[in-house]
């Protein structure tokens, strides 16, 4: 789905989002100045490794942080024209699960083991919609059928442990979509599943997106999943957005050393690879980021400037933003690699 930015207005705008955790060891700046938009009906992929702040970002949008986490002054999350950070708890509860829904990585943990699937879906429906129990139950059954669960009349009365991993994730999706949200946040929705089941779930999400026209934020560490499912991509590292552009551009012409390294570090089925690129060093501890650019201690293209000053996220092409002083070097490296591939 191509998204024409001129026509569409953003459904969700995140501006200068900063979520800090005040721990005994110090302040963990898990999300530190994140900006992005989600347009209606599109899929925004957020990709990053552990500790990049991608999950905290999603939890912040729904205000589901644990008490140690604080959303700093100056952060803005504008959803449908309202700043979610200014809403009180009651107003937020009306949005959560209704206009913005979320599905999690581990459906066994996210579903309540002592209630049936049906009861859990009905809970969301009864909370947000003005219907009686009987109608809600029928809606739950219809929803289960929609997500491809066989014999939904029977399954509606089953408990989560009676379903397989893939079926549980389908039930989660049914629950999330039961109120027809405008935005679905999917945090690693298929990481715990086998690849053949992953393919089923991702296909299902695409179909339902087409039908309902909702926007999806797809959070994952798997760049393959991003490539096949996202319209636009946000690459996060160390609590900051490193690069963002539409999916084709990010994969074809990455303009940040981290994105470039990440794309070259994964084994791929579509091409022959002699040797994988490896990004040197380790994922940094969020308590001790290096000075200057947070990627500078692992970057092959760094210069002195990078260790002193944090680069801004600047537009390098139409709709393509990169947080790197020397993004031109990445272009060069990419050209050399492409030439090598051709030869």
């Amino acid at each position: 789905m191509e998204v024409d930015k001129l026509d569409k207005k953003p459904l969700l705008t995140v501006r200068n989002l900063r979520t800090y955790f005040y721990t005994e060891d110090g302040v963990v700046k898990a999300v530190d100045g994140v900006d992005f938009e989600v347009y209606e009906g599109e899929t925004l992929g957020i990709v990053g490794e552990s500790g990049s702040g991608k999950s905290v970002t999603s939890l912040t949008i729904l205000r589901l942080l644990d008490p140690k986490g604080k959303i700093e002054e100056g952060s803005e999350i504008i959803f449908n024209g309202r700043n979610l950070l200014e809403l009180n708890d009651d107003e937020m509860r009306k949005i959560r699960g209704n206009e913005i829904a979320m599905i999690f990585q581990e459906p066994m943990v996210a579903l309540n083991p002592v209630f049936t699937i049906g009861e859990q879906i009905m809970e969301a429906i009864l909370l947000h919609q003005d219907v009686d129990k009987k109608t809600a139950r029928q809606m739950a059954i219809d929803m289960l059928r929609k997500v491809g669960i066989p014999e939904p009349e029977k399954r509606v009365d089953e408990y989560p442990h009676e379903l397989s991993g893939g079926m549980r994730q389908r039930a989660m999706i049914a629950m999330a979509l039961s109120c027809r949200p405008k935005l679905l946040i999917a945090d690693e929705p298929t990481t715990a599943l086998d690849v053949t089941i992953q393919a089923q779930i991702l296909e299902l999400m695409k179909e339902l997106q087409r039908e309902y026209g909702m926007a999806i934020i797809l959070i994952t560490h798997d760049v393959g999943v991003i490539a096949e499912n996202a319209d636009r991509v946000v690459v996060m590292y160390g609590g900051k957005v490193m690069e963002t552009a539409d999916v084709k551009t990010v994969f074809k012409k990455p303009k940040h050393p981290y994105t470039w390294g990440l794309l070259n570090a994964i084994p791929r089925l579509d091409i022959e690879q002699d040797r994988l690129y490896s990004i040197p060093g380790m994922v940094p501890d969020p308590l001790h980021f290096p000075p200057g650019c947070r990627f500078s201690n692992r970057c092959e293209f760094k210069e002195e400037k990078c260790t002193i000053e944090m680069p801004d996220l600047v537009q390098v092409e139409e709709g393509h933003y990169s947080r790197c002083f020397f993004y031109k070097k990445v272009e060069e490296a990419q050209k050399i690699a492409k030439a090598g591939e051709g030869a």
Partner: protein
Amino acid sequence: MSENKITQAVQNTTFQNQDTQKEVILRIDNLVKHFPIKAGVFKRIVAWVKAVDGVSFEVYKGETVGLVGESGCGKTTVGMTLLRLYEPTSGRIIVNGEDTTHYFLPSWKAKKYVQKTYIEKFRNSNFVPKDDVDAKYLKIFKEKGEEGLIKYLVDNLEEKRLQFRRDIQIVFQDPYSSLDPRMRIKNILAEGPLAHKMITKSQAIDKVGKALEEVGIHPTHMYRFPHEFSGGQRQRIGIARALLMNPKLIIADEAVAALDVSIRSQVINLMMDLQKEHNLTYLFISHDLSLIKYISSRVVVMYLGKVVETARKKDLFDEPLHPYTKALMSAIPVPNPEFKKQRIILQGDVPSPVNPPSGCPFHPRCPVAQPICSKEKPELREIKPEHYVACHFPGSL
């Protein structure tokens, strides 16, 4: 019936491989591992989980065999059983041309195994050996008699066990639980070689330091504890621990699955460099077909306790012949938005290994299944040179 056929097919391969003069480090011959399900007050066995149900493959010296499949296909059980962390239900595990299946049994059971597996066969004077191990043991049987063969196979079991433990090492998936949190790295690494008297205490520091250096960890860090290292570093320590034993075969069970992408490629590259340097042999167990494609020289694809396809890497990825392999490949997301691939979405879940489907285990999910597939078990057949497929209609998807 068909199991016998499979065995035969595999045995035929063995002879062929001898022609090409590849040194077989490991041969798994019709390996079966069933776990009992117990229920009730008396813990009666009510059913069996057929985790591994007749698996055969070989690993040659210096190569990497990728064992791939989804969760529940039995790939980890194969690894655990061949390490004898589980005793196999039946089948043989041959290491370096010697049957090691009975090594970890008490000696009376070991004798019983030898009687059943070899001597009963050899008593039949018309017996023709089907593989090199049979031939070797038949020779001993003929020269030294029954007692001689039992003596050859069952004597000094303790020593044989130690040898086996040195020869086969494993690198585990979870680097957080595979290192003892209360031991210093030096002691973790020196424990094996010291126990096997491969080094003396005074050599330990030197040897451990060298091994650490090889895996890219500063030797001065040997006095640290595991918690002081990151996941990638711990996995490197796990590799160093395996290396120190000079193993003939290293089993890597999802060795990089728990690592972040940027760290994963470091560890994969390290393992491949070490392989070149020391001519190591790997059995790489993973669910990740892209990784298997990158690292392996040959691939074994498992589904529901059975091998469905095995081939050299290039053959398998250029032309997968089993519908399951093909579907698995198409399910893997490719990090290239412009790459157009054939999308095959399998319906349903992997069936339970307690009641596997009749006939071909894949038939309920197979897009090209025919009536015969639910009735008859397809045997593993050689369709192309060194390309084995267990399917009635190979290449039809």
